[in-house]
């Protein structure tokens, strides 16, 4: 998985210039149910994986989220 591309897609969802791997998701202003829905849709459409909301809520950083999506692809 192309991680920089994943962070770029995450940045678009979170409406910021850049997302760094160690950024904590909850610290973003727009990390709400709409953002989580957007992440689910992105994971499905771009990476072909079905991520559950509780899995997303259990991760802390952007890198954790990238790892979650990557692990599901295997």
């Amino acid at each position, binding site marked *: 998985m192309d991680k920089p591309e994943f962070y770029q897609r995450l940045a678009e969802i979170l409406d910021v210039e850049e997302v760094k791997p160690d950024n904590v998701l909850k610290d973003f202003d727009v990390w709400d*149910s*709409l953002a*989580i*829905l957007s992440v*689910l*849709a992105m994971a*499905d459409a771009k990476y072909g994986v079905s991520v*559950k*909301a509780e899995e*997303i809520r259990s991760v802390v950083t952007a890198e954790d989220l990238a790892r979650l999506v990557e692990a599901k692809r295997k």
Partner: protein
Amino acid sequence: MKCTFKNKRISSIITVAPSQEFRFDDEYPYFKMTEAQAKRFKKMMSLDRHRIAPPDVCASDLCLFGVQQLLKAGVLKKEEISAILFISQTPDYILPPTSNVIHGKLGLGHDVICLDINQGCAGFVVGLQQAFMLLEIPAVSKVLLLTGDTGSKQMTRQNRLNYPINGDAGAATVVERCSDERTIFMDVKNDGSRHKALLIQGGGYRMPSSVETLKLREVEEGVVKCLEHVDMDGAAIFNFTMDDIPPQIEEVLAFSGDTRESIQHFFLHQPNPFIVTQMAQKMKIPQAKVPNNVVSLYGNCSSTTIPLNITLNCSEPMRTETRRVCLSGFGVGLTWASAVMDLGPLDYCKLVDYESK
């Protein structure tokens, strides 16, 4: 479970929307959204306006008004009605069945089957299956399939998750026998283990109505509700629609020997425009075949989004032409039901506004 039917058709559809319309731009302060939040939400969900029934208008009123228009237009006669199926989650009363109330208001004779079915977004296709099955009884002539919900009564206006996308509406669909032998293909599935994904906890007999169940709480920013209001696990529903519905539609297409190309319209239930777009992309169906404007203009009206979609977008061609269509409803239960069939020419196909007496 897959099944097929022959010699049956939909002959008329009328959808009835309450005339009261609200615009998201005027409503967003109720949802405690800032202008920026509202803009983001509006864009993502393609929201514009929706129809909400006034307090004294029930789903059955919308459906009954539709039936009266069909009678007035002469496409249906009272004596032809052999069965009334009322598909709803917002009945008039806990008892008696609302189909009986409608039967009485129409002044029908005693040889009529009346059934209420507690169903939501899969309700139109589930109801069609029941209507086709009733038509296997020789004495049954025409079945009135009534779908209707006033979901706005199961939430507060101060609920940013549910209220902006909700719409109230009702529809009356006439289902009857015909000489056409072309097969109707259908699949209906259920998963009760996920029944909590869409739930109203209180007000039934598991948790009877009380002062406690009626207490309003702000459960999260911009979401005020009580235990007698609808609880939706939005993410679980999103997973459900993306994981379970595309495979079912593909199965039904394979069952009927159809392809994405041979189907002219995919009339999918519309929870919100975002999900419908994602589903169409996933199934690689051109968006032009998947009309997706019901929620933006009327709101998610549960079992009525499919008839509303047909009458809103294809009213003219459906009166003169036969179209190969795929219908798919999915939601509360969880229940998901899809069908492939020929639709039209219909005797009547119209979307009207409700007029109170």
